[in-house]
């Protein structure tokens, strides 16, 4: 199994009373509450954690979120550029650039290709649909974003695999008449592609495309539904059954020397759910395009009527969760190495296996020293015991042919 370290580089230092008064901790919280000197320290610490991962054989994840306390990584390709040069061995996953809010996917493809070259072929490219406050801060129309997501992926894939001179793209959402990026990608035909999603329709499309399906903080039940949709879509399309190498599971995770330490430090990760998800109504449930109008009865009333259709977003149901609940729901793995190993394998069995475990190992007030200790214990005491990946047949054949 591949283990991936994921740190969102959060900014937890805004006083709680200001957060309580703010309508949203994303998109509209003034940046005067973010001290650039503290931010510089945080970047240094988080990037150092990624270098420690490189020494220990733990892969690293770059992300982006916008305009809020939940992440200072505003541009995944920029972080990739640093990781591509500063790490030497491990794989680097972008999970990902918020492609639905970028006006020009060709530019993103160019940045990815550059990072792949700098890293000499260690890049993996993940896509996330984004939504909510990021549509607002990204000035992107929230209506139609799913369709835009797929066209952006198509255009990026075409850009990364075209080597014979300019091609033209006149799609529904993007037009670019002269596409010919330099340098081209290092890996051929292109770096592995991922997407983080939870809805079965998207997972089914990922299955047909053979992309890696990552489930982030969704728990085993929702993850299994998504993975099953992935498998079924491939079966129905006459494609080979996927190995575990197509599936990734992401959870908050902290490994301590003892169960007490693991739980005590790991509980700090819940800040991400309990503090950083607060969004205003207009940037969440009232934002058009986010949920179908058919769910309006449940969305708009102050108290949903019994029997009305429900469609609570996954994040909403996690706010206020405690450590025991989070562990029971497969959102958090925390304890000593044996405990964390058992928790991961329990989820592994429930969802039918995965070859990638993404551990969100730093968030909230969990500090740099604690994060590095968790990374070391994960790398030395847990990772070696996790099962090997099973490859997807046609992907293995394609790799052998290269």
């Amino acid at each position, binding site marked *: 199994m591949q283990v991936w370290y994921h740190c969102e580089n959060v900014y937890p230092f805004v006083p709680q009373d200001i957060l309580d008064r703010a*309508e949203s901790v994303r998109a509209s919280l003034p940046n005067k509450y973010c001290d650039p000197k503290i931010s510089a320290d945080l970047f240094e610490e988080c990037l150092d954690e990624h270098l420690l991962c490189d020494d220990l054989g733990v892969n690293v994840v770059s992300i982006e979120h916008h305009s809020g306390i939940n992440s200072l990584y505003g541009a995944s390709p920029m972080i990739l550029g640093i990781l591509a040069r500063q790490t030497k061995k491990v794989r680097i996953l972008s999970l990902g650039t918020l492609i639905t809010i970028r006006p020009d996917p060709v530019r993103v493809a160019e940045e990815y290709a550059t990072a792949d070259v700098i890293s000499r072929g260690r890049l993996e490219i993940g896509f996330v649909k984004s939504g909510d406050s990021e549509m*607002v801060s990204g*000035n992107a*129309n*929230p*209506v*139609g974003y799913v369709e835009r997501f797929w066209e952006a992926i198509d255009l990026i894939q075409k850009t990364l695999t075209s080597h014979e001179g300019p091609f033209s793209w006149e799609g*529904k959402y993007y037009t670019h008449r002269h596409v010919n990026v330099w340098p081209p990608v290092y890996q051929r035909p292109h770096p592995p592609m991922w997407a983080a999603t939870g809805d079965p329709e998207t997972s089914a499309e990922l299955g047909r495309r053979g992309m890696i399906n990552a489930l982030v903080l969704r728990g085993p039940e929702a993850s299994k539904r998504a993975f099953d949709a992935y498998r079924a879509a491939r079966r129905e399309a006459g494609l080979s059954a996927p190995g575990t190498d197509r599936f990734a599971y992401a959870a908050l995770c902290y490994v301590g020397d003892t169960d007490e330490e693991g739980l005590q430090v790991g509980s700090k990760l819940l800040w991400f759910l309990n503090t950083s998800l607060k969004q*205003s*109504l*207009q*940037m969440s449930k*009232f*934002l*058009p*395009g986010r949920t179908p*109008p*058919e*769910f*309006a*009865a449940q*969305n*708009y*009333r*102050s*108290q949903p*009527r019994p029997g*009305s259709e429900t469609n609570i977003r996954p994040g909403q149901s996690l706010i206020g969760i405690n450590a025991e609940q989070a562990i029971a729901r497969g959102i958090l793995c925390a304890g000593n190495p044996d405990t964390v190993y058992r928790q991961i394998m329990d989820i592994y069995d429930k969802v039918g296996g995965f070859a990638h475990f993404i551990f969100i190992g730093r968030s909230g007030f969990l500090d740099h020293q604690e994060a590095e200790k968790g990374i070391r214990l994960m790398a030395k005491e847990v990772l070696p015991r996790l099962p090997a990946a099973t490859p997807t047949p046609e992907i293995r054949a394609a790799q052998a042919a290269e």
Partner: protein
Amino acid sequence: MAESERLLVNGIELDVVRRGTGRAILLLHGFQTIDPNAPFLDLLSRHGEVIAPSSPGFGNSPRPTDFDTVYDLVHLYLEVLEMLPGDNVTLVGFSFGGWLAAEVAVACRHRLDKLVLVDPLGIKISDRETPDILDIFNRSPDVVRRSSWHDPDRFAPNFDEMSDEALVVYARNREALCLYAWHPYMYNPQLPRWLARITVPALVLWGASDRVVTPDYGRAYSRLIPGSRFELIDDAGHHPEVEQPEAFAERVAPFLNQ
């Protein structure tokens, strides 16, 4: 006559409310579709046949795939003008529908006899750092509510009391509006240049308490339409036809009949 019926325009199906008889008075709705029970409909129908379609994606009108721009809506209503019986049509546009009505009036002189714009959107007046039109998607629902109505407690929609069907239509209207008008937000940068093409008599009405778009924006709008008259309606916000239906009809009636 049925509460609502269907109008087929170039293969596009529109849900339409019709009321009254006589000259055609075509209403283009704003953020929300027109309530068939709205008192102003009956008041207007004393002066002609009121025809109020729901634009594709709004109300119960389906939206064809790839029908997703203001350009589509303008051409749709140009086609509706050609289809309506009689010599000439009076066009009344509210808010977002006021933008469409202005675009239609710029493009079509021969089928219109009069134009009424009620708190219309569609142009940019102020400098680049001053938004003219309240961002009803990005601002808090409370701010939008207070800015939209003179008396929000009496007139703003009460989601807890609305039926499931009404809430679905409300959300559907917001989604369609967002699709058409997200960017540039609720205006066409080119429109001010062409408003001078409007040659039919035009009346620009404005709710005095409108803070979605202020009366000053309305005065500037009116100045760009040659010969147009600007009038305020007191004790009304962005929807004077809803908050002050009598005052609204009293302004429109003499204009229609002059």
